[in-house]
């Protein structure tokens, strides 16, 4: 009886080893035939297996005063400031970037322009919807716009307002001699469909 069990055990182990050997041969054959395709597929899937935590909160950045430069720039799409225009009761988040997704959340900062405190042109934009800049027409010369960031608060005074075509980029000049905030929205303020005109408010740094 014992010898039968021993023999069975021995034969079973041999058969399992044979089974593992066959598995190995099959895997080797698959690798030989479709190895490149498998590697390509894994690489492709790995590219879409990304873990990107979405940053919704305001990012902390600092200004180096002597250089008039930020120590680090906010990540694209993150909020780094808030804009307040008391005259039209606007208190909106400012995001770095100007995609549709960003503009849906608040005010966008054109990525080619300067940041508040850097001493150059700052370009902000927002929709002409009721939640954002629908009441832009109520703004007058001398009204204040305040931008609050983690590294300071900047107040600008409106000195000009212009109605431009969307293609007139020269009306939004980038320069580093004077800190100017340019905020624009679509015009007419209450329209239907896409508009080609932009209403721009120009404000200079007060303090």
């Amino acid at each position: 009886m014992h010898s039968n069990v021993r023999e069975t055990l021995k034969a079973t182990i041999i058969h399992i080893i044979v089974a593992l050997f066959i598995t190995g041969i099959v895997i080797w054959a698959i690798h030989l035939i479709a190895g490149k395709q498998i590697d390509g597929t894994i690489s492709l899937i790995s590219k879409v297996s990304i873990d990107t935590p979405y940053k919704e909160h305001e990012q902390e950045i600092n200004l180096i005063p002597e250089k008039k430069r930020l120590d680090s720039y906010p990540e694209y799409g993150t909020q780094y400031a808030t804009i307040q225009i008391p005259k039209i009761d606007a208190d909106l988040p400012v995001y770095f970037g100007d995609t549709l997704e960003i503009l849906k959340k608040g005010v966008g900062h054109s990525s080619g322009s300067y940041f508040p405190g850097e001493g150059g042109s700052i370009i902000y934009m927002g929709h002409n919807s009721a939640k954002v800049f629908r009441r832009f027409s109520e703004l007058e010369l001398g009204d204040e716009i305040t931008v609050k960031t983690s590294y300071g608060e900047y107040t600008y005074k409106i000195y000009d307002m212009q109605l431009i075509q969307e293609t007139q980029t020269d009306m939004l000049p980038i320069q580093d001699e004077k800190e100017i905030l340019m905020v624009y929205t679509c015009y007419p303020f209450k329209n239907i469909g896409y508009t080609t005109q932009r209403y721009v408010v120009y404000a200079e740094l007060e303090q």
Partner: protein
Amino acid sequence: MKVLGTIIRYVLVMILTVALISIAFINIITSTILNKEYVLSKLDETDYYKGIYQEIQSNFENYVGQSGLDEDIMNDILTEEKVKTDVDLIISNIYDGTNKTIDTTEIRTNLNRKIENSIDNPRLLVIQRDAIDTFIDTICNEYTKTIIHTKYEQNINNIYVKVVKYIKIAKQALLITIIIVAILICLICYKNIFKGIASLGVGATSTGVFYIITNIFINTQIKINTITILNSTISNSLRNIIDDFMGKVEKCGFVLLAVGIVLIILGNLFNNRKREAKGN
């Protein structure tokens, strides 16, 4: 002669393993991703319809922001039920080979009514009417685009029909192969059928081990839980389906491994008993 018989037996076991691997794989995919009811149940389970509904609303907001219309203009122009009906229609197009199109009349009518109600002056200029029509067309196109999510819908529909056709043929061919191989193994071992049973066990064990290794390999190579395609709704449903698929692969592996080992043990046990009885 005995050695030749053993070699032939193991060659047949190898063919049996490949056939078992293939047929098990076909069974898993036909019961999961190629099964319309399964996909629909997974979409329901992962709140796909709700997610797509929210995505559509969110996309609409992009257009409202630019249009200058009030934000609430998009409220109540479509329901989650309508989204579910249209998603199911697209799934049916893929799985049943139909070619039905999404009906946007309801959205069109609702949106038009809401825009007209929001305008103070009911006498619209031609230019305003055109702007409204363009806006409604854009919204309806955006809706259809978000529901379909691919411009290759037609191609996918054709692919599915072809794949199912070939899979049916392949499944039948594999089934016949398995039966023939099993009969051949039994014929080679006609003097001692228990040897044949153990050999079939080897085939099942190999297949089981293959699936377990495949599952481990895929799970170590690919971070399934972070796969991101198009948006969170689609990614979530896709991850859930892949997870379930891999779970089935693992389960299949362990079942075949268990069946294989039982067959090997039983085959060897009775084979030894027979040999012992012969010796006595």
